[in-house]
């Protein structure tokens, strides 16, 4: 019998007011722009002013989301910390490289350099908690969060930890936005939040955020969901491969498309990128209610973390906020949610959550 993995606490800092608590997405932040920034809570509630001065935004949002997750779980010390980030601490990387160029590689200060590595966030969380346990960061582009999650699941199942803090995060900086825009990733014109997913043009909106989860092998009193399964698929040749992968994934987790009460997809409003969601829905979930999330948080390689946070919150509320609903009406009882996301058409992932009664 496979060990059940419970989501005992979540924390999310995103372009929505997700760190503030209260009813799920009740105060929608509506944007009409192509890049979204996080709504930042007061980080000084978790970080001493003497330490905060060296932290860039992504470090602060990671530490903040991690603390929210641990607080929700009622845990002060996890057995391990696992993070996933595609871009790492980009802002400090930009600061350091700019200084290298401008100052002809002389008189370089150490702070930006030592804060610019991908595992800075995981390290800072551990330092603040005094956590000497396993600490690992996965930097696998669009699978960074998923592989952090997979590592966590494997560790919990092999019994080497009882509670693990795991999260995915990425920041958007002026440098990264400029570079990624050159690849045609983003729309040329601003789009309204609630119109993005019906947008008839190429490109999406850029986003950022941090989502952390405290996973454990024992449920807490407030636990509402279990992480039933996770799977990734890299560079499928055609949509049939994705459809087959989803069927196999559901089968491996002892269910069929009929058992899925809500589909949560990573649609991002790019007509080219969203095609595959249409194909999957048509083939497997033609009448299923569907929710989406990237119009709320923007596109970034670890956005599936926001999707998983949303799915867990939906299971807690047993309702889908109107602003997240894409198609149909959610059933009264939501027992299983399948999150299907892809990043850039190359990194496809599936996360299955089940309601804990």
């Amino acid at each position, binding site marked *: 019998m496979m060990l059940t993995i419970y989501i005992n606490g979540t924390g999310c800092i995103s372009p929505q007011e997700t760190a503030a608590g209260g009813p799920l997405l009740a105060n929608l932040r509506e944007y009409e722009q192509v890049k979204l920034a996080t709504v930042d809570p007061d980080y000084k509630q978790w970080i001493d*002013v*003497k330490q*905060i*001065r*060296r932290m860039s935004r992504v470090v602060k949002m990671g530490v903040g989301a991690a603390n929210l997750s641990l607080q929700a779980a009622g845990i002060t010390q996890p057995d391990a910390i696992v993070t996933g980030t595609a871009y790492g601490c980009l802002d400090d990387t930009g600061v350091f490289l700019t200084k290298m160029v401008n100052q002809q590689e002389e*008189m*370089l*200060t*150490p*702070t930006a350099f*030592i804060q610019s590595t991908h595992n800075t966030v995981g390290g800072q969380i551990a330092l603040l908690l005094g956590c000497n346990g396993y600490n690992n960061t996965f930097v696998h582009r669009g699978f960074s969060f998923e592989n952090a999650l997979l590592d966590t699941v494997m560790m919990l199942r092999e019994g080497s930890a009882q509670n693990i803090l795991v999260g995915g995060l990425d920041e958007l900086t002026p440098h990264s936005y400029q570079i990624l825009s050159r690849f045609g990733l983003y729309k040329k014109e601003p789009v309204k939040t609630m119109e993005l997913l019906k947008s008839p043009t190429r490109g999406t909106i850029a986003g950022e955020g941090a989502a952390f989860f405290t996973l454990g092998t024992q449920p807490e009193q407030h636990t509402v969901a279990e992480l039933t399964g996770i799977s990734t698929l890299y560079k499928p040749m055609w949509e049939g491969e994705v459809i087959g992968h989803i069927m196999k994934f559901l089968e491996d987790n002892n269910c069929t498309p009929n058992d899925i009460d809500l589909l949560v997809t990573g649609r991002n409003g790019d007509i080219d990128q969203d095609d595959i969601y249409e194909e999957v829905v048509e083939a497997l979930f033609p009448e299923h209610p569907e929710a989406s999330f990237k119009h709320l948080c923007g596109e970034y390689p670890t956005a599936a973390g926001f999707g998983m946070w949303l799915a867990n919150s939906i299971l807690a509320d047993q309702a889908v906020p109107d602003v997240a609903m894409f198609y149909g009406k959610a059933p009264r009882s939501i027992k299983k949610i399948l999150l299907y996301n892809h990043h850039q058409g190359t990194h496809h992932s599936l996360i299955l959550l089940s309601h804990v009664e």
Partner: protein
Amino acid sequence: MADLKKQIIEQLNLQEVTPESISNDEPLFKEGLGLDSIDALELIVLLQQHYNIRIANPEQGPEIFYSIRSMAEFIVAQQTAKA
């Protein structure tokens, strides 16, 4: 010394600290502002960038960076020697 305090606040990104709140004579490290070894490197770069002063003998560091006053006196002494 007021300019030096502003430069230190900016270079070290000190939060909730104003030039007026920094005493001329209190220790910069451990006590006082509570600076650490990374800050020491930042202060060495500050001296190079703003005053074109290089610290030839690293062992002088604790003495030079003891307080705002000791830093200011070191800067003045170096500038006078160059003039």
